[in-house]
């Protein structure tokens, strides 16, 4: 049985990172590196959501909770406490993990549609707190004053080139970690729970506990995506916690292919490209996006899950 080995994957990841780091010499424009940085934030975010939707069968509508939480926690920590960037990231991830544990403990035991809606409700709760707590969060204007970027380990994130390389490194590392997770026994337990939770119980697995673990892991990576976006815009905006961010992430996953690990990455890049292109011509981006999504949803009537599964099976059949 051919199994991707840890060593092989590490080499692939390093190669990918090297390639990404090299690209700005070929495409020196600012819009290119901006695109890659934004895409890396969303790639991490969407891939983390796919851990839940694609691999665990847990359809969360409220994953944006962690994106927004990550962005605001990081930005506020940097603004108010003068902490170093690595420390701020560390604390942000810790906070995200705690919130994910609390929210997950409530949501994870619920049946499908209740789980979906309750996660969304919690996200909107965060959103409403962000909007209302103007003293701390700046309300609907977002955080003003910028996010300070003190140098650490010789890395100066106020230099766009450093920022580019840093974000690429974080993205590649995050995706590598999530891939490893998915290829570990834990990942296969998630697949078993997705396919047949009752049977998993009858293998002695405490299904809700494993689901909670998945929820927390996904939440932490979602928060990391929020950190990246906050660095990019040097602020934090309520939009990062608005429900549309979750909807877009779902679309990214379906666009790229739910059964494919790098699908969300592709979907993120595609959607951002669409966004950039459309907003050049019209301010009615929502309308265009809505039509695109509708056409896509009706066209993939079988459900991309079926489509993705078939491709996956074909691959597995050939490969096994």
């Amino acid at each position, binding site marked *: 049985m051919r199994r991707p080995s840890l060593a092989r994957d590490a080499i692939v990841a390093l190669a990918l990172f090297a390639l990404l780091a090299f690209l700005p010499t070929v495409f020196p424009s600012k819009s290119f590196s901006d695109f890659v940085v934004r895409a890396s934030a969303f790639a991490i975010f969407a891939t983390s959501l796919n851990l839940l939707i694609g691999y665990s069968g847990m359809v969360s509508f409220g994953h944006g909770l962690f994106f927004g939480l990550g962005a605001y926690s990081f930005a506020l920590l940097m603004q108010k406490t003068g902490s170093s960037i690595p420390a701020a990231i560390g604390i942000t991830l810790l906070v995200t993990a705690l919130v994910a544990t609390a929210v997950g403990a409530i949501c994870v035991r619920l049946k499908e549609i209740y789980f979906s809606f309750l996660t969304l409700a919690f996200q909107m709760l965060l959103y409403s707190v962000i909007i209302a707590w103007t003293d701390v969060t700046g309300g609907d204007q977002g955080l003003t004053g910028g996010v300070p970027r003190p140098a650490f380990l010789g890395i100066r994130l106020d230099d766009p080139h450093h920022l580019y390389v840093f974000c690429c490194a974080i993205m590649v590392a995050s995706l590598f970690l999530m891939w490893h997770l998915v290829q570990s026994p834990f990942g296969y337990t998630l697949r078993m729970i997705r396919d047949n939770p009752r049977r998993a119980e009858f293998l002695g697995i405490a299904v809700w506990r494993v689901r909670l673990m998945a929820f927390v892991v996904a939440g932490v990576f979602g928060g990391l995506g929020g950190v990246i976006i906050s660095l990019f815009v040097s602020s934090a905006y309520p939009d990062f916690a608005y429900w549309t961010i979750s909807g877009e992430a779902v679309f990214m996953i379906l666009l790229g292919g739910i059964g494919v690990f790098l699908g969300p990455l592709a979907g993120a890049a595609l959607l951002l490209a669409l966004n950039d292109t459309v907003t050049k011509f019209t301010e*009615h981006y*929502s309308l265009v996006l809505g039509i695109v999504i*509708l056409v896509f949803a009706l066209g993939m*009537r079988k459900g991309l899950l079926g489509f993705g599964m078939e491709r996956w099976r074909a691959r597995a059949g050939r490969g096994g």
Partner: protein
Amino acid sequence: MDIQALLTCLASASCIVTQTTGGLISGILLFLVAAGLSLIFGTLKVTNFMHGSLYMLGAYFAYTIYTATGSYALAVVGSALGVAAFGWAFERLFMSRVYGSDVLMQLLVCYSFILILDDAVKIIWGAEFRSMGMPAAFQGPPIVVAGGVLPVFYLFLIGMTLLVAAALGLLITRTRMGKIVRAAAVNPTMTSALGINTTLVYGGVFALGSLLAGLAGALAVPVRSMVSGMGFSILIESFIVTVIGGMGSVAGAMVGALLIGLVRSFGSIGFPLFTEGLMFAFMTAVLIVKPSGLFGREA
């Protein structure tokens, strides 16, 4: 957190009356929306994720008809029927195509419509907040109860909703059509095998659910302002209401909606920053104690 303000209010009869009526009104509007959502879910087993947009359409339709004709009655009836027709078309043309698919596909279809409608509303009516103001018929002086204010319009709202709720109840339980709807909810294959046109039933139920949402929007317009995207928060609230009351239960929706309305009304005094949080705390508590909702059946 401002507990002092809350206690002061609770000590004052006029404050209690004003807040209670305000809360009841929120609750009633929420009930109409939630009832529609619950009806669609109960029969079609589909969550109409864009239900809030129907509420928004109802508000804008009513506003347009009223400003054009000066008749609020026409506005209410017209917008309710208009949204019902829209709902019917949406179900027949789009939703029905994804019934068999993954719930993610259904979500995407609804999501796409939220996006499309939000922008459409911006394009047609503009992106600013709009207010209709109180229709001439209700511009009389408010009724004063124990020092608290009770606008005449509120009485109309309450009366209208009770009428609609009663009509809905009778429709579902007493008429042949209601029986068919309930049968189709329980066993669609059998119902269709009995020669009943289930597609008509599905379209009809969706239209009815949409009508309720649109009606709520039309009734809300004199007392709420309108803006693109206003549908979403009411979607979340109506979902919370159905969770608390129990999916598929109309009585549950009523109780849940009134409770939420009151929690919001009094909560906004005591916890101005965390009013939403109160609702969630309440819902979480209900979910822990009775996961299928106060009136819900174990689905």
